[in-house]
């Protein structure tokens, strides 16, 4: 980029903010309401949640950079198609890599890997940030938002796996003697509706702490 006049340090205060704000006040899932579609269905266990989170971080960061590099060449009328094609190509890469190395997880995620394409976080960030900023801040923005998204996914996956199956990362965590004392796995938490309720509770907790975010119905 030729228009850089002064050298900005790579991790200036402004750039650090790009990384941290999406974790809290601008969280994609609980505040911006983006990317919920594929987030909830795969949080039954921790492992697919982490894999999904990593895939989204990758696709989001790389596509943000690519769009940011191309931003002056893309005619505004066809920008959505261009963005979708960039995203779709990256998702194909992720899908093939997952199929090659972690086939079981890729089977569990089923159509939801493909649905990263229509994950609104990615389109949303490309529109809101990638189209208007230089590659390096776009990269940080992509990473930050990806982590903010993954963070919620991992929390939800953690609680649902622990309460629903008594395991974490397929490793038995709740010892047998507790079961012998009469404890039972809460099968209800594994069912889809509970993901929504868990996220609802997270939203509730976040807004209790940070009252700026409270909305009026």
């Amino acid at each position: 980029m030729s228009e850089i006049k002064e050298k900005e340090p790579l991790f200036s205060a402004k750039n650090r903010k790009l990384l941290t704000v999406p974790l809290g006040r601008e969280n994609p899932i609980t505040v911006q309401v983006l990317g919920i579609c594929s987030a909830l269905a795969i949080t039954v266990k921790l492992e697919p949640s982490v894999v999904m989170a990593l895939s989204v971080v990758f696709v989001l960061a790389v596509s943000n950079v690519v769009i940011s590099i191309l931003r002056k060449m893309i005619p505004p009328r066809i920008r959505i198609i261009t963005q979708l094609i960039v995203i779709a190509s990256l998702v194909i890469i992720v899908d093939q890599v997952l199929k090659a190395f972690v086939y079981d997880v890729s089977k569990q995620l089923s159509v939801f890997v493909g649905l990263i394409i229509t994950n609104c976080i990615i389109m949303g960030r490309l529109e809101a940030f990638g189209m208007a900023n230089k590659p390096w801040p776009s990269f940080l923005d992509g990473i930050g938002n990806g982590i903010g998204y993954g963070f919620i996914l991992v929390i939800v996956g953690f609680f649902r796996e622990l309460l629903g199956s008594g395991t974490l990362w397929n490793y038995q965590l709740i010892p047998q003697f507790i079961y012998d004392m009469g404890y039972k796995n809460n099968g209800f938490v594994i069912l889809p509706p509970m993901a929504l309720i868990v996220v609802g509770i997270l939203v509730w907790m976040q807004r209790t702490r940070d009252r700026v975010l409270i909305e009026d119905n």
Partner: protein
Amino acid sequence: MQDLFNIFIKAIFIENMIFAYFLGMCSYLAVSRTVKTSMGLGVAVVFVLGITVPVDYLINKYLLLPGALSWLSPSFADVDLSFLSFIIFIAVIASMVQLVEMVIEKVSPTLYTSLGIFLPLIAVNCAILGGSLFMQEREYATITEATVFGLGSGVGWLLAIVAIAAIREKIRYSNVPEPLRGLGITYIITGLMGIAFMSFMGIKL
């Protein structure tokens, strides 16, 4: 006939796009403030799903599946293009949405202005791509089945968004805890509705 009816009912109630798979949640949460706009968006979604699923079905069957190209020449029998399905499906969806947009603008400008930004948003509605991907995964036998599945999923989505919009219109008059207002309570109500819809799972079709 019986089969088609089963697929339709299953897509609406038992495998509802919103309550069983969370597809199209973003627009579901963002647009469900009033019944009127949700109805408009819902109808558009039914329409786009009803077109794209059969189109993608044909593309999948005659272009992408392993050996699908053998109608062209027997030497293509071992070509497998299925890795291209994401990019082709999304291209079909984006162009269909564009087409629908142009048709609505010509035929009914009032509907066009009332839908506004929500029309192009359909292109990134996961329910639409999800419909095509589920169609591919479940290997429906004929194009009629695929069409019925597409329409059924659309109607299920419409039902869900109109229902939540109606609830949200009423909930304005109740005293929800402040931090839970808006997004939080909508999530929880959707969860409860999902539990209600799970009772349909017992139906064997």
